[in-house]
């Protein structure tokens, strides 16, 4: 297993670059010791990681998956205790994810040369340190072979997003956005952590797949449901209910990170960060972590239909919900942000709908075309001198062709137009959901309906964006003669543009249906994972345990329907916005427009919640603490001092009074003791 011995290196390389960068940031501040402000180490590291990842990919293909415990974090002696370990799990899923992450990260590093270095940003070492640490954490999360390790790196990813969103900390906006992002995801992680703890308390292990004596909790759960369970503590619930609870708890983290309703509010704000960061974190990878986690432990979720239905419903709803908001945004990155939320909704929809492969597929394609779109937007933003308002743009098509065509390819993919990547994956997502819905899970149908409707909106806002940005007449001075961009911007765009156009061919399910040619490579790839971690196993679980059955329904029809919806959206956008100087047609929507523009007042609502719920209680308890709790303490002392000042008044200073009191005292004692002892009888 020579190859796999290098698996940890994939994680360590970016970490190394982080150390280098942070080291220079601390010890050589100001002095420009690192060429390109630390970009080169990062690029080198990511390149190496990419190569290694590809090697892993190949090796997995050749030799199958690899799972190895590397480090015992905390050992537990004897029975009833857990051994908490770090391990590397490189199987089909994680190998694919490794390639995606390293590739996108590498391209983002390169792009940053243009976006950050060429713009003479300060604090570049800090920036690249952040990128490096982020890549390391994300990769660590991808290769994690147990839930606890996954959670740890999940949290580190959150930290990095906080660091990078708040990169421009001298302005008021970014720090606040960073705080919001961390807090909202933290709220999700709260449930996630309970879930992790519950998994340990329930199964005594959090391994994804059985390894060296340690059992895997999805397997144990399966046994529990199929009756042959021992030593599993379900806290008095029956197994299925308890597993649903646990699954939903873990889902909390997913909803947070993958920006699903209602914890989606952080993502649009996160656009305050540098655009490459938005591309890397908030499009391609970190937000993918949530979805990836569900895919990772799909063997568990496949056992609990209720949770699956909820996942699907959240996904479908989020897809539509976010898409509608994307329709009316003015800033290009805002549109992309909401499209991101919406697209991850699709992935959740797929997972909930039993489309494990479909979800992974969309995860991959989306990673490419969304990264592409963000980087393209970044290029536009450079050109526009960091003005993001689409209404100041227009006519950039001629002035920056490379950006335009790559961006177009990405947009087509996003809109799901044949034959671009997004078409294939999104179509499969909807198809899987549909067939399982028809197969006897009506709730899925509702989710499907929402997902389908969202396709239309997607098409519309995508091309509204394209048209406003690149077509028509320039609507501002900067748009007339924009700032040029160099190879380090164009290069990544081209690479991703090609991928966005072609990545879909990894899994041509409809084609296979038509021609019978075996061209669903991804499908096969994922079906040959480790025994308990492959798509086949999942589908059997879905069928046997969760009771999902796929109705027989032609993939072509569904494909045609969704394509139709997409085209309709695109067409509408074309009609409305394809003229030299378009006006704001969205204004015609009136109140609806306001509602969408203000994101259904979700932020206001959540802020209100935090203000009154959080700070309100805080202030209240502070008053209570100062007044009552501490008041009692101080009260005791003042009372005793007061009584002291009264007691001492007995000492009048007149000796005759003393004599009197003395005699009185004796008499009282005499009477008391006399009565007590019966002297006077």
């Amino acid at each position, binding site marked *: 297993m020579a190859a796999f011995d290098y698996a940890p290196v994939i994680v360590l390389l970016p970490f190394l670059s982080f150390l280098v960068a942070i080291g220079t940031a601390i010890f050589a501040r100001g002095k420009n010791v690192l060429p390109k402000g630390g970009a080169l180490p990062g690029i080198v590291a990511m390149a190496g990681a990419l190569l290694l990842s590809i090697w892993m990919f190949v090796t997995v293909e050749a030799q199958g998956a690899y799972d190895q415990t590397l480090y015992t974090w905390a050992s537990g002696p004897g029975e009833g205790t857990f051994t908490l370990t770090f391990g590397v799990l490189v199987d089909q899923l994680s190998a694919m994810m490794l390639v995606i992450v390293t590739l996108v990260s590498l391209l983002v590093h390169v792009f940053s040369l243009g976006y950050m270095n060429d713009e003479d940003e300060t604090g570049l070492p800090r920036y690249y340190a952040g990128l490096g640490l982020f890549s390391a954490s994300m990769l660590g999360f991808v290769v994690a072979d147990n839930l606890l390790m996954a959670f740890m790196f999940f949290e580190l990813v959150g930290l990095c997003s906080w660091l990078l969103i708040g990169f421009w900390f001298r302005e008021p906006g970014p720090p606040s956005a960073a705080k919001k992002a961390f807090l909202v995801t933290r709220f999700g992680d709260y449930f996630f952590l309970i879930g992790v703890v519950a998994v340990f308390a329930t199964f005594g292990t959090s391994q994804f797949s059985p390894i060296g004596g340690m059992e895997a909790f999805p397997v144990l759960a399966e046994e529990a449901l199929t009756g042959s369970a021992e030593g599993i503590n379900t806290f008095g619930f029956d197994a299925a209910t308890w597993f649903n609870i646990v699954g939903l708890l873990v889902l909390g983290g997913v909803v947070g990170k993958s920006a699903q309703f209602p914890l989606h509010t952080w993502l649009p704000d996160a656009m305050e960060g540098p655009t490459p960061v938005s591309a890397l974190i908030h499009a391609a990878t970190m937000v993918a972590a949530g979805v990836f986690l569900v895919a990772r432990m799909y063997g568990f979720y496949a056992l609990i239909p209720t949770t699956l239905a909820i996942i699907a419903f959240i996904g479908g709803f989020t897809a539509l919900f976010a898409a509608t908001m994307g329709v009316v945004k003015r800033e290009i990155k805002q549109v992309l942000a909401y499209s991101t939320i919406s697209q991850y909704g699709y992935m959740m929809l797929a997972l909930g709908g039993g489309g494990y492969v479909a979800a992974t597929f969309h995860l991959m394609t989306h990673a490419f075309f969304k990264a592409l779109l963000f980087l393209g937007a970044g290029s536009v933003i450079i050109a526009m001198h960091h003005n993001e308002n689409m209404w100041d743009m227009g006519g950039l098509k001629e002035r920056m062709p490379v950006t335009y065509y790559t961006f177009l390819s990405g947009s087509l993919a996003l809109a799901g137009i044949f034959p671009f990547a997004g078409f294939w994956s999104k179509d499969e997502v909807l198809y899987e959901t549909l067939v399982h819905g028809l197969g006897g899970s009506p709730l899925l149908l509702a989710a499907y309906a929402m997902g389908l409707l969202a396709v239309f909106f997607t098409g519309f806002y995508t091309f509204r964006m394209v048209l406003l940005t690149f077509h028509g007449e320039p609507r501002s001075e900067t748009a007339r003669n924009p700032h040029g961009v160099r190879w380090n911007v164009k290069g990544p765009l081209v690479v991703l543009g090609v991928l966005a156009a072609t990545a879909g061919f990894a899994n041509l399910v409809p084609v296979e249906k038509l021609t019978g040619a075996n061209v669903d490579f991804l499908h096969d790839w994922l079906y040959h994972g480790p025994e308990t971690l492959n798509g086949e196993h999942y589908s059997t679980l879905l069928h046997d345990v969760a009771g999902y059955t796929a109705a027989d329904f032609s993939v072509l029809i569904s494909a045609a329907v969704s394509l139709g919806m997409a085209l309709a959206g695109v067409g509408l956008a074309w009609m409305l916005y394809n003229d030299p100087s378009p006006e704001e047609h969205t204004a015609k929507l009136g109140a609806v427009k306001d509602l969408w523009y203000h994101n259904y007042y979700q932020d206001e609502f959540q802020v209100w919640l935090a203000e009154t719920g959080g700070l309100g209680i805080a202030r209240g308890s502070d008053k209570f603490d100062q007044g009552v709790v501490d008041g009692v303490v101080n009260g005791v002392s003042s009372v005793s001092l007061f009584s002291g000042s009264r007691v*001492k008044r007995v000492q009048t200073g007149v000796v*005759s009074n003393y*004599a009197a009191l003395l*005699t009185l005292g004796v008499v009282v004692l005499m009477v008391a003791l006399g009565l007590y002892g019966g002297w006077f009888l």
Partner: protein
Amino acid sequence: MVPAQWYLLLAAAVFCIGVFGVLTRSNALMFLMSVELMLNAANINFVAFSLQWGNVTGQTFGLFTMAIAAAEVAIGIGIILVLYRNFRDTDVTSATTMRW
């Protein structure tokens, strides 16, 4: 002979008179005399019950008491003198610089 409890009552009476004096008289000398009265009330008991029990312990103690009473008066007079020097008065209630 006279039963013992009569002596007890007498002694108690004398003692109470002494106490009364202590509580009512503010002149230092009167205070002292009242205390003497109380001491002698004790002496009555001693002497009487010395007879009662047929041992001399009580009478001896009576002598002790007188001696000590004398010494006490000696000290007392001294103190009352300096009291008079400092407060120009032998009224025990006049000295109240220290209280509470």
